[in-house]
């Protein structure tokens, strides 16, 4: 069952079409990547799901029902441009924003303690936000996004500004939130993180959906019959005109070959075994990065 259903949404700003009949279907309990270059319309779409703005036409359904104002207490939103009140104490900030989402004060306080401990921020809770390092502020922002246990979490570039160690921790937390039942909409142009955590994606370019589906499925769709071949004794695989050509790729441990049209993998392996001592062959699927660039540049 889908948690979010965006159907045929159109949004126009001052003569500029920000969303052109966009559909988005996010299954319950999924980490869903919303991808697209800058200015494609991701933030416009997120703001509509957040009820910060309204669609000119089209519908947004949450959990099978049309989106209403009260649903926003069930959404946690981490905007790309992070922002906190700088002059107040960490604890006050977290509790204030939690209560704004309708959380009772008592529960907000106890939940806050849990989260601060998880992020090793407990000793900072009495300090003003502006005294914290940027990384710590990001963690506080993350806590304010998830503290009210929303069913839907929207993260806009969550990893920007985190060092690798903290990014790893954040990734674990996001995965855990998913395991606990939250649905996560994840907007980014960091394709490496998409490969790591997203199950499904929608790619928006020039206000339109240009690609959508499961990550593995999309990769299959975009695969180019590339394989990495490893042979024994340091031999060099040469191109074989009827079967495959060699694609230069310095980054791979082995030789990258591209099968010719109509050639099966079986035939190729047979041929390779005949001429070399084949120690391994793996299919090379395109990275999300390649798919992204190819899709965006083609259309």
């Amino acid at each position, binding site marked *: 069952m889908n948690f979010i259903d965006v159907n045929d949404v159109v949004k126009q700003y001052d003569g500029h079409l920000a969303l052109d009949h966009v559909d988005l279907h996010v299954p319950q309990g999924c980490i869903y990547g919303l991808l697209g270059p800058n200015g494609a319309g991701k933030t416009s779409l997120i703001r509509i799901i957040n009820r910060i703005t309204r669609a000119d036409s089209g519908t947004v359904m949450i959990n099978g029902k049309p989106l209403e104002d009260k649903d926003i207490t069930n959404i946690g939103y981490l905007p790309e441009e992070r922002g906190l009140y700088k002059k107040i104490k960490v604890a006050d900030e977290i509790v204030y*924003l939690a209560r704004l989402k309708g959380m009772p004060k008592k529960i907000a306080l106890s939940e806050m303690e849990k989260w601060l401990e998880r992020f090793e921020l407990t000793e900072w809770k009495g300090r003003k936000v502006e005294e914290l390092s940027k990384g710590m502020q990001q963690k506080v922002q993350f806590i304010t996004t998830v503290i009210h246990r929303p069913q839907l979490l929207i993260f806009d570039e969550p990893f920007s500004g985190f060092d690798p160690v903290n990014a790893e921790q954040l990734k674990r937390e996001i995965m855990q939130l998913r395991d606990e039942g939250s649905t996560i909409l994840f907007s980014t142009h960091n394709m490496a993180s998409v490969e790591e955590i997203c199950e499904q994606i929608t790619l928006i370019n020039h206000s339109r959906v240009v690609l959508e589906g499961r990550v593995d499925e999309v990769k299959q769709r975009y695969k180019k019959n590339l394989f990495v071949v490893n042979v024994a004794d340091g031999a060099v695989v040469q191109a074989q005109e009827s079967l495959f050509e060699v694609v230069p790729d310095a980054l791979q441990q082995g030789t990258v070959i591209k099968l010719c049209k109509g050639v099966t993998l079986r035939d190729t392996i047979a041929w390779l075994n005949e001429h070399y001592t084949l120690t391994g062959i793996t299919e090379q699927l395109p990275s999300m990065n390649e798919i992204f660039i190819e899709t965006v540049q083609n259309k």
Partner: protein
Amino acid sequence: MTLVGKKSFIVMTLLIPVLILLVGCVPVLLAYVNNSADTSVTRIAVIDETGRYAGALKNNTNYRFVPLSGQNVKNPHDFYKAAGESLDAVIVIPADVENSQQVSLYSEKTMGQNILSYVTRCLNDTLRNAKIAAMGDPELLSKMEQAQVETQVKSIKWDEKGDEQEQSAGLASVIGMVLAFLTYTFVLSYGAMIMNSVVEEKTNRIVEVIVSSCRPMELMMGKIIGVGLVGLTQFAIWVVLLSIGSAILGLVGGASMVANPEAVTAGMNLPGEAGAAGAISEINTAIASINWLSLLGNFVVYFIGGYLLYASLFAGFGSAVDQASDSSQFTMPIILVMVIALYAGIACIENPNGPMAEWCSIIPFTSPVVMMVRLPFDVPWWQLLLSIVLLYATALGCIWLSARIYRTGILLYGKKRSFKEVLKWVR
């Protein structure tokens, strides 16, 4: 939520009444300190060459006059030296004082204005009476006193039934002006506070988080109402602190006035005890003649209306800028209108029922200030009603307009916007 906890805010709230009280009682305090701090008695020898006027110089708590017969002293300086520490100054009343009207005060220290004016006061009456007596008409003095004229205009107001009520135009003007200033400063300072808060949330980028939790309209109205209530609370604290403070000061001042009336009245250059008491009773009747309930009620109504009107404009246009430093292009026109309102108010004191006063107290942008000036002078009820209805209608209009600007403005960053562009967002 960020405002009330700030130290600067708390300090301001507590300090302002203290400052006002200080400013208010500085003259009294100064006079008091001036006269009482100097507890040592100044001893002055009086060399009276006429032999008639030494008695006019009466001793009091500060000054002791020691009359000497004129013939004994040839040189005041030698006498002064000989007396040593026991003498502070020497007054010489020359033989021809009635014509020259001049006496001399000798001393090594510079003597203050207080002693000079005290001596002048003491001698003036005596010398004048002596002069009158010298004219040979024994009844002249009493005739002159009878002929003294001090005209007073009593302003009496009729109410609808024709009953008479004394009023004080002076006091009414002062009250009107104070209320107008209050409205002006409150609306401007709290309006600016709202604008800063809007811009701050926008520069912080927290606004996007907040509007994902509540509607922009709610955020804006919450801000306006919140800051307004903070202002009213602050205002109430001021009123309470001020009345407590002035009551305490009144007690202290009153006690010292009883103990040492001369010092206080002399220091303040008041006409004298009788005059002061008269003025106070006059103020009392004037205060009693004003309908405080309707005055304060109307004040609050205009205050809230004016605040809503301007605060919403500040919030709306504040949302159009990225940094506080860019806001002046939008605040300038708003402040200009406020300043015009204040000047109109000041001008209306001269003629609180004239055409300018009437117009400006009905136009919603100036009425919260100008009507304050008119309120103590009984405004016709239809004008009051019209003005209030117009004010609140305009305030609602401004809130609507600002809300539409606000909801677009808070999410737009980047280039500086012109007035025209901002007004486009209304559509």
